[in-house]
């Protein structure tokens, strides 16, 4: 590997990562305006045209507010907590495919940070590390609300990790690969002449499980038990100051974005436009880099759709109770995940036999 390659890879990594971080300010305004739209009120519309500069105002406000770190906390883990949530949320981005290839100086580079052969295992493994920030942060705050909130958050996230894993396993079963890139590549063209060749038509039940588990993993309503403000003040971040809250917030939105990107790559064809194959597009456009741009735009549009669904669901569905949450995970989702696996395996077996 030459040093020019290394530089291109580093710059590519930085651009993709910064692009994912941009989700946070965009979602700040989208969420507030979306909530306002659903509740039939104007929402933030004073700062800039249509309130578009509201995120900037929000961020400045967060930075200028007073930093309080209470006396009873365990200093080291208390300070580390928010970053332990943000780091895994950032690291997941590595495995997500955003496009096929672009060419630069007569060399082609993939539009993905790293094409890992263990892609989906990597995503699940790193995703499971996010709980430590919550656990240690909640414990180090030395506050009863924080500790109970952290325990609840962890119980919820680990309970829904199993359905998530089973749903992902169904996808691995039908694609025969761990690599997210290969999964996307398998979704090109049409299915039965009429449908786009997307994973959701192979794994409808798997997608449903993945979708529900994604909401629980990101602590979004209807699963925001960790911070039920009526019971636990603010859950695990009760004792945290404004910037730490901002960091948790950032991690939440980055998790939402990565979950959306995962759903797009596994079930909704990734960078492929429906029905049209890449070869046809390349002929029409004539240039590899134009095609790459189109693919990235496709992925961004698909991810935005799922982000909007996240907002829509948040302001529409009320919150679960803790026992209802556990019952949903253990009694419904895990058996459904197993059934999904068995059905998929049987279909492949009988299809192979014919």
């Amino acid at each position: 590997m030459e040093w020019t390659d290394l530089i291109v890879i580093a710059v590519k990594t930085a651009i993709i990562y910064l692009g994912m971080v941009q989700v946070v300010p965009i979602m700040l305004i989208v969420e507030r305006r979306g909530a306002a739209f659903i509740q039939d009120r104007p929402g933030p519309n004073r700062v800039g045209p249509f309130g578009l500069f509201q995120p900037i105002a929000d961020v400045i406000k967060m930075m200028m507010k007073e930093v309080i770190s209470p006396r009873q906390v365990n200093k080291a883990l208390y300070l580390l907590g928010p970053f332990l949530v943000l780091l895994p949320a950032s690291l997941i981005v590595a495995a997500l495919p955003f496009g096929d290839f672009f060419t630069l100086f007569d060399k082609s580079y993939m539009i993905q940070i790293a094409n890992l052969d263990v892609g989906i295992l990597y995503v699940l493994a790193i995703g499971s590390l996010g709980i430590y920030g919550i656990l240690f942060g909640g414990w180090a705050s030395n506050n009863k609300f924080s500790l109970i909130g952290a325990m609840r958050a962890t119980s919820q996230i680990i309970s829904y990790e199993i359905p998530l894993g089973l749903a992902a396993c169904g996808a691995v079963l039908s694609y025969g690969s761990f690599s997210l890139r290969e999964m996307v590549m398998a979704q090109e063209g049409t299915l039965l002449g009429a449908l786009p060749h997307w994973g959701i038509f192979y794994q409808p039940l798997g997608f449903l499980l993945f979708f529900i588990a994604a909401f629980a993993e990101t602590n979004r309503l209807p699963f925001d038990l960790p911070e039920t403000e009526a019971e636990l003040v603010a859950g695990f971040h009760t004792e945290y100051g404004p910037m730490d809250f901002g960091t948790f917030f950032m991690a939440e939105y980055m998790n939402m974005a990565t979950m959306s990107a995962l759903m797009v790559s596994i079930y909704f064809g990734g960078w492929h436009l429906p029905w049209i194959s890449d070869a046809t597009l390349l002929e029409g456009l004539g240039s590899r880099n134009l095609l790459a741009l189109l693919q990235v735009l496709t992925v961004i549009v698909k991810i935005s759709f799922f982000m909007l669904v996240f907002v829509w669901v948040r302001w529409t569905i009320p919150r679960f109770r803790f026992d209802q949450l556990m019952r949903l995970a253990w009694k419904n989702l895990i058996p459904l995940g197993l059934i999904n696996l068995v059905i998929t395996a049987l279909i492949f077996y009988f299809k192979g036999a014919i």
Partner: protein
Amino acid sequence: MREGLFIAFSLFTIAAASGVVLSKNPVYSAFSLILSFFGLSGLYLLWGSTFMAMIQILIYTGAIVVLFVFVVMLLNLQVIRENSPNLLFVGVVSATVWFFSLIILRVLTRAIPTNVTEIPTNQLRTISKLLFTRYLWPFEVLSLFLLVMIVAIFAITRAQEISHGGEKV
């Protein structure tokens, strides 16, 4: 590059492992345990075993340590005063003897490493196939073993519940 990463990961792992042993507070021990497992998975990656590196993070760091942290936080003890170590003489002597005897043995047999060739590329599929062909029987026994574990754990917690007059857990 490779050697540099190896040294970095090794030192990190050993430092974190000594953190587990030396921390007074079990929460810091658990945190060091996470770091040391992370360093280990880095070492596995350097050896080329991506699958095991991911399993290490997924099961060890993502599940087993969660259990440790949960228990530490549920009991939420004040730090235990460990004025005198448990088995000071036996511990220090056996650990030292173990360490130096093996190191000396290793230095004496320095010439051994052979077969330094290319890493097989399709290791993921090789392991998966072996697991379901040659090692199928142990694999099935494993699931029976886990079932027994589920029953055992609930038997233990239930026995305790009964001895406490059916207190709701």
